[in-house]
């Protein structure tokens, strides 16, 4: 049962009702009456006692009329079930079926190949590099092109099956590494293969690649001609980018910058349209510096992810950023950061005004059942296949969570056993989730964050007595910057 939570910012008192999903301003009389109601419920013999307390304590602080008014208001809210405890048990009772997984497979929007494990850089924080912890020994393996073609043939069947609802929408074929340009032959041959599939079917493909840009000068014409959507990894200016080095520890910055400039010079329209940047945040750079760098230098925004402590341990850890939202520069960066997404998620889950789509408006009162945690349904976001042929729900997940593989030219995806495996996780964790105050706002991935090496599950569960802290954290900031609300509410949309 989820109770109403009272919380305060520096200046104001609020309360949140799980049942009504409203954060209202609270008056001390409410909290007082709520607590005495709880007392009464817990201790019937003590009723009289509480009633006397009620009179004595509050009459001293508040005038009769104020006390009476808020008592009446409290009764009104109570009658409207505002203080009713919410039973969230069924909320996370969702499981996935093999049909669900098959549906996602037939509608797969992104298929990503780890083209090679090899890399021409040796970034200090890279989980393939020195600080490699969770992964098996490096093999410097390349993806086998024949296997890749078999995967595409398999997916062609799926994409053209009756379960596909998105024919005509672009399917992204991703080339990931290591450094994918080190195995350019693979890229070239697969692109040609996909083009033949495109001719045979109604399917539409778009290629994307994440590269360190060291070899960009050599292959850019091919990428441009095939309209690759290109993501260049760069951690900011030369100083910020210091961990991105060649194996001989020499900085890669100058080479990369030179190549980007060459691309801009020869293909400026392409650069404007199809090139993006991403950066890893670590102890030697800073979100705002990095964003300013790409904005000023290339007139582009940049996607930043923090160095992942699960993969590299505590070295290189990004110290975090305190945004001074009074500064327009900080505000701008904040809105592009993952913090803004968290706010969006918060506002969405702590209010009633969010609708997913028109069908949600049509079924405005439907009670939805979710799968616990923030884990995605396999293949709903992507399919990642590593150079060893292991199939994974995305590139950040350890290979022990593979959901299929391709071995000796044979592809093996058993939707039934995937569903069973996931459901066993869900059933195990959901007992915990049912009493957690983050139940509708969890966002944690079972595979990435919750399941530990020894198979146990650990997460950042929030009990009732700590729930106010979470609310306080969000409300303290938004109370000072209410303009954030409209900005986030109106500008941030997720897919």
């Amino acid at each position, binding site marked *: 049962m989820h109770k109403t939570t009272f919380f305060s910012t520096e200046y104001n008192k609020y309360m949140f009702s799980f049942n009504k999903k409203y954060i209202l*301003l609270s008056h001390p009389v409410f909290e007082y009456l709520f607590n005495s109601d709880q007392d009464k419920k817990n201790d019937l013999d003590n009723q009289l006692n509480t009633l006397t307390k009620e009179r004595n304590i509050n009459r001293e602080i508040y005038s009769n009329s104020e006390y009476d008014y808020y008592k009446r208001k409290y009764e009104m809210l109570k009658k409207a079930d505002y203080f009713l405890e919410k039973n969230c048990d069924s909320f996370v009772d969702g499981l996935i079926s093999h049909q669900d997984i098959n549906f996602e497979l037939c509608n797969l929007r992104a298929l990503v190949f780890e083209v090679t494990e090899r890399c021409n850089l040796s970034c200090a924080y890279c989980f393939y590099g020195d600080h490699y912890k969770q992964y098996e020994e490096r093999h410097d393996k390349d993806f086998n092109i024949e296997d890749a073609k078999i995967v595409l043939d398999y997916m062609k069947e799926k994409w053209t099956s009756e379960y596909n609802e998105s*024919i005509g929408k672009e399917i992204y074929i991703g080339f990931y590494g290591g450094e994918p340009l080190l195995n350019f032959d693979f890229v070239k041959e697969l692109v040609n293969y996909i083009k033949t599939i495109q001719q045979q079917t109604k399917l539409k493909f778009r290629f994307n690649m994440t590269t360190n840009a060291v070899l960009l000068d050599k292959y850019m014409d091919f990428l441009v001609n095939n309209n690759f959507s290109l993501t260049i990894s760069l951690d900011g200016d030369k100083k910020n980018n210091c961990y991105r080095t060649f194996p001989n520890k020499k900085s890669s910055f100058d080479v990369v910058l030179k190549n980007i400039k060459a691309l801009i010079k020869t293909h400026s329209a392409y650069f404007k349209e199809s090139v993006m940047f991403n950066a890893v945040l670590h102890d030697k750079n800073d979100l705002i510096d990095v964003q300013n760098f790409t904005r000023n230098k290339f007139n582009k925004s940049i996607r930043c992810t923090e160095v992942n402590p699960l993969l590299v341990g505590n070295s290189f850890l990004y110290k975090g950023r305190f945004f001074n939202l009074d500064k327009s520069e900080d505000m701008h960066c904040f809105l592009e950061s993952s913090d803004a997404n968290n706010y969006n998620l918060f506002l969405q889950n702590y*209010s*009633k005004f969010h609708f997913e789509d*028109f069908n949600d408006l049509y079924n405005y*009162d439907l009670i939805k059942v979710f799968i616990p945690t923030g884990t995605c349904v396999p293949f709903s976001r992507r399919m990642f296949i590593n150079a060893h042929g292991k199939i994974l729900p995305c590139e950040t997940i350890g290979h022990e969570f593979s959901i299929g593989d391709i071995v000796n030219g044979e592809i093996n995806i058993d939707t039934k056993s995937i569903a069973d495996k996931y459901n066993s996780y869900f059933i195990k964790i959901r007992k915990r989730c049912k009493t957690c105050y983050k139940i509708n706002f969890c966002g944690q991935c079972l595979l990435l964050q919750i399941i530990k090496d020894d198979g146990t599950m650990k997460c950042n569960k929030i009990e009732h007595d700590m729930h106010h802290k979470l609310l306080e954290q969000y409300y303290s900031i938004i*109370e000072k910057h209410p303009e954030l609300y409209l900005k986030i509410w109106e500008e941030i949309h997720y897919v």
Partner: protein
Amino acid sequence: MSKKKYFYIEQYVYSNFVNNNILLYNTFTNKFIDVFITNKELLNFIERVLLKDNLRTIDVSQEELKNVIIAKFINKCRDLFIADIIESDSKPFIMSPIPKLNQNIRESIKGNSEHVLNAKNMIKELNYFIDSKKTLCTNIKLKANGYKQILFPFYNAEIDKQLEFLTIEKFLFDMNIQNIEKINIIGNICSENYNNEILVFFKNNFIQFHTYYLDFDLNGTFATEILKTKNKSFVFWIDNIIVEDQILKLNEFVIKNNIYSIFKFIVTNEHEVNQVIEFTNTITLNYELIPFFNQTNIDFFENNIFNTKKDILNQKLNEREIFSKMYINILNYGKLYFLPNGAIYSNLNINPIGNIINDELSYTLKNEVLNDNAWFKTRDTILPCKNCIYQFICPPTTNYEKFINKNNLCHYNPYIAKWQGEEGYVPVEKCGTYTKEKGFVVNKRKVNTLNKQIWGEE
């Protein structure tokens, strides 16, 4: 920092402000304030509260608090727990109820027309008319436009031939059949024009057969065949209860075979209503009354169908329902109608949005999704409702409006903020003119004069 007084509207209160007319509706208690504001200071005060950036929370000056009219307004709000005053060192944050639609396909289509494919998921109901030249119904008015007004199961395809099911099937193939909540098959199912292929195609959907009660042949092949299929239900349409016997037999048939059914009694006046009530009192029957506008019974509609203030404000709406009304017309949303000639409609009273023979599903859907035709025909897209504070509380528009030639089937005149029976009320028609082509056109001068007379200058 010194303490200030902040006036704020509670999160659970829905507010609308149109032409100096304000509605504050407490969704917890269903109590409301609706006033036409003439006082300048109060008007300023309210405009400030409702200014989007202020998020319905403002600091109140001493001067404002001393103003008798503002103070009275604040007190009224506090009395109904619609708003409150709080003293604080810093402005509190109240998340004002602004609906957010994460994926707005109507917007995204404009950027990328491929997104229209997502609209497939919006289809909720298919209505499939079959040619019913042969019917025992003799009511000429019902036969003429009953299908357009109330989905009466008669469509006379005089020249059009009934399409082969193959053609229809080809068109339906692109849909996500499993997402469709209901299929209505409308017309004389017992005639030779109907064939059961459609049943095979929709074997897993919920199907409702609409038929005129006298046309249903209890001993015919359809009645025997249909018992073998699942997920079916019947709607029997009755325009008079002279042949009581047939109704009783039909009822017996559906009860015996455990088939969910509704008997729809078409009524055009109070006398018929009483007749039906009297008749149904004697038996157990799942029935509904369906008013039919026959051009001569406007009084019946005015007295029984038109909304009064009480009707509108006593609905016990929840907040999400109100937001839903801002975006879609829930009565029309997701419905498609097919005529025997292949024409596809989102509403039978407007132009078709496509044709089964020549058009693709995506083209058809695009026509609907990009316009305020039917699915998205909300009250703010039509006059005079566009100017009315109740626009998102009021029930959605229906088909009757078209036949009665009046968009607001209510006793309210939004231009002067008066309900029938209140002092100074004149009907909306006095504030402009209705034409078939343009709908309602308001006469601004007239409205100004009326408002001056009713509400005075100040």
